[in-house]
């Protein structure tokens, strides 16, 4: 009877451990996969490890995560310990109050602390970056240290320090020689907790960092939107390192016990060597790109052949800080919160807005000789007449990607209303973009997608609500790419460039732009007004228009090139037969997005949040 129960509890614990370790195990296995697939194991390789090591973004993030965690741990441990001792010496009322206040960050959802700190930093006019991240980590780690040190301090005899000082110790000596050794356990526990919290943190870091400073969590968060096996490699390395540390921590004391002869000096020497090695490693990691000229480029995610950045850095002896955004709105928020960039790659309507709000400087076309390579049909568009401020980068349309084996060819006649055909209920991805979703609804209703008529907007909102309730679509981001390649749903609203890439991977799919018209879009490179490297920024634009770079860029990303030779090569060879690569720009019903006045914009934003928050 007793045995049976033991077996049950053992089995239960085992089952839970499987639950804990399964995801980790899976990532470890797939880190050795030779292909990008996360569903089939195609062969053993170290491919993702070498990609990881060469990925500057990741190595930098490891550096940031480690140094922030170490510094935050050191500082918050000292601060927390001193604070805890100070607490024990305060009056009861004050003590209670202070303890309660310091408990707020521990007890509340992290996002509350994050918003508070972010607002504070921005009100102080601090530029988001390494320092703000470090300060935020100190702020949220210290209360944890206090909670683990304070109980130990409280259990101390309050006369201890006084006795030491009566015997001639200075306050500093009393602290370090008497109090600290007695609360050592609590201090260690607090430091360990602080390190863990800091190293693992996402929510707070996400809100308070910026200007290219990212920790591992932020990089992984950005990566999860698209399949990227380098994450698996990173996770495997992290686990192996942790296991090694744990083994060492368990083995060293035993070795010490066996050979007590090793004297303290040798021990200290070994510790020093280890610390120096770690420091050297960190410095090396951090100095990946330390050159005098730094160009800050801010582009959409997965929107460039990263090798081009390396090439450019080598060619022009500079370093590029490359950051990505999820949407134009996100980019605008960052820009207006005071972050500075040199080159941006926003979309048409956002460029119009940035010009109006004087964020940009006029381009000097004499410095961009490769402009002659541009396709004639992408120049001189309504968002920037005469291309005074912007140089086209990629272009295309928005349309419906559909599974030819599931969707009836007849049904395509419905145009945008195909997305509310009950036949395909639960089988649709919408795109998580406010303007594109309203564009679909407005076009389906026969209105202009740039309408400011409140009634039309309201009607479009109702169309979207009706579609949401009857069709149960998923509002997806870039994850739609992998899902459509795997054939997870019958159709998806996508950008033509993503469609081209997806169709090249899954030929069962087709792409069409409805007759009612669609969003004809242009993304272009612009230079900001407070750009520090104006010449280098022009060189960058010129470099991206180079025929060779343009070709490898469009080959890597799948979006339609604005450079004529690259465009021709792609449509005649690489992407032959994939018509989504050739944007249909002759439909008179199609439009380019125009700048929205703030009050209209606010209206859209509000309605879109309502659509998404069911």
């Amino acid at each position, binding site marked *: 009877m007793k045995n049976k129960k033991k077996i049950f509890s053992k089995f*239960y*614990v085992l089952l*839970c451990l499987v639950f*804990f370790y399964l*995801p*980790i*195990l899976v*990532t470890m296995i797939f880190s050795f996969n030779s292909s990008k697939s*996360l*569903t089939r194991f195609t062969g053993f390789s170290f491919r993702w490890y070498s990609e990881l090591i060469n990925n500057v973004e990741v190595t930098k993030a490891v550096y940031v995560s480690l140094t922030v965690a170490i510094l935050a741990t050191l500082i918050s441990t000292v*601060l927390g310990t*001193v*604070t805890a001792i*100070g*607490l024990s010496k*305060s009056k009861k009322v004050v003590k209670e109050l*202070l303890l309660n206040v*310091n408990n*707020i*960050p521990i*007890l*509340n*959802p992290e*996002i*509350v*602390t994050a*918003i*508070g700190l972010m*607002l504070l930093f921005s009100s102080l006019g601090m530029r988001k970056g390494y320092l703000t991240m470090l300060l935020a980590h100190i702020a949220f780690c*210290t209360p944890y240290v206090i909670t*683990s040190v304070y109980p130990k301090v409280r259990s101390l005899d309050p006369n201890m320090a006084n006795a030491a000082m009566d015997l001639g110790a*200075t*306050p500093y000596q009393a602290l370090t020689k008497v109090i600290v050794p007695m609360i050592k356990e609590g201090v260690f526990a607090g430091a360990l907790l602080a390190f*863990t919290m800091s190293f*693992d943190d996402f*929510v707070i870091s996400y809100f308070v960092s910026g200007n290219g400073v990212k920790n*591992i969590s932020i990089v*992984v968060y950005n990566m*999860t939107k698209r399949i990227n096996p380098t*994450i698996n490699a990173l*996770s495997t390395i*992290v*686990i192996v390192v*942790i296991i090694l540390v*744990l083994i060492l921590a368990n083995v060293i004391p035993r070795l010490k016990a066996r050979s007590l002869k090793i004297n303290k000096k040798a021990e200290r020497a070994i510790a020093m060597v280890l610390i120096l090695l770690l420091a050297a490693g960190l410095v090396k990691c951090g100095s990946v790109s330390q050159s005098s000229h730094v160009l800050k480029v801010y582009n959409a995610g997965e929107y460039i052949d990263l090798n081009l950045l390396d090439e450019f850095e080598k060619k022009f002896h500079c370093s590029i800080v490359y950051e990505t955004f999820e949407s134009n*709105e996100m980019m*605008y*928020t960052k820009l*207006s919160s005071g972050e500075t960039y040199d080159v941006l790659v926003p979309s048409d309507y956002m460029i119009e807005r940035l010009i109006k709000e004087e964020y940009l400087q006029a381009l000097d076309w004499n410095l961009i000789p490769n402009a002659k390579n541009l396709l004639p049909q992408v120049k001189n568009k309504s968002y920037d007449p005469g291309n005074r401020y912007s140089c086209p980068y990629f272009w295309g349309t928005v349309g419906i990607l559909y599974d030819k084996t599931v969707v009836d060819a007849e049904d395509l006649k419905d145009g945008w209303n195909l997305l509310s055909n009950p036949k395909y209920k639960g089988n649709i991805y919408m795109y998580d973009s*406010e303007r594109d979703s309203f564009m679909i609804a407005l076009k389906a209703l026969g209105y202009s997608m740039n309408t400011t008529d409140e009634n039309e907007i309201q009607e479009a909102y109702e169309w979207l609500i009706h579609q949401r309730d009857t069709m149960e679509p*998923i*509002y*997806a981001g870039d*994850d739609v790419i992998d899902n459509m390649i*795997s054939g*997870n749903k019958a159709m998806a609203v996508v950008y033509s460039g993503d469609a081209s890439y997806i169709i090249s991977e899954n030929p069962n799919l087709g792409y069409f732009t409805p007759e009612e018209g669609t969003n004809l879009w242009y993304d272009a490179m612009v230079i900001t007004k407070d750009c520090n490297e104006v010449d280098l920024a022009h060189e960058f634009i010129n470099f991206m228009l180079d025929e060779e770079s343009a070709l490898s860029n469009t080959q890597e990303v799948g979006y339609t090139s604005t450079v004529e030779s690259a465009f021709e090569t792609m449509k005649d060879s690489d992407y032959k037969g994939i018509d989504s690569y050739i944007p249909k720009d002759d439909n008179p019903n199609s439009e380019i997005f125009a700048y929205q006045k703030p009050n209209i*914009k606010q209206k859209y*934003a509000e309605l879109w*949040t309502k659509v998404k*928050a069911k």
Partner: protein
Amino acid sequence: MRRRKSGSIWMILPLYFFTLVFVAGPLLYMVALSFAEPGAGYGVNWSFSLDNYKRILEPVYLSTFVQSFKLAVTSTLAICLIGYPFGYFMAKMPPSRKKKAMLLLMLPFWVNSLIRLYGWIIILQNKGMLNFILQKLGLINEPLKILYSYPAIVVGMVYVLLPFMILSVYSSAEKLDWSLVEAARDLGATKLQAFVTVSLKLTLPGLLSGIILTFIPSMGLFFIADILGGNKIVLVGSLIQEQMTRGNNWPFAAALAVVLMILTTAMIFFYRKLTNAKELEGLG
């Protein structure tokens, strides 16, 4: 004597400095901002209005709170059911195994939680491991669409927050005097009776603090809803993030955060009333 006093001041000063600048400052600023208005286009118009709070009462936003609450209840319930027995069994283990179990429990904690969630994408996707196994076993014909659904978010929540429950149940079960259970049995209680009247009752503080430690964070962990739920706004946390980034409405985001803070504080207040405890179990 004078020397001693100045020593104490140097020890108390950092305390005040830290509390004011890093904890109270940001929170007070946030509260102040929640009464302001978003500026046209960008920034903040300082004014005093209750509009942001009125807006939260609109059905859409209110329903996000309700939904977030429901999700938190579901996740916490699942965490209780899975975590309580684990913590309880662990406390009953012989010391050597206890240490090993603790180590095994803490190890995943050290791996970045976003990386671990990414592992779940691999498992839950349509052609992923779970569907593969279920199909091979003949339990299902069509692959289940779990990824980017509500259950996927619950799985993510349970996965990230479970250790908190286990640790707090464990720390109160460890203090349990097992001879009391034996005494109850000797006095004629059935196993179940002994468990309910003695073990459960004495570990209740641990269970309750576990509930607090899992329930509260689950309202704010927007990245779980993001990664496993497919960008849906189901949490108060996702709503705040949306308003902070894309919505560009900081005062409204601040108001949402303030309401979240009040809810949390109320919950902890009731927890303290209920248990008479000053501190949560299992922290640290």
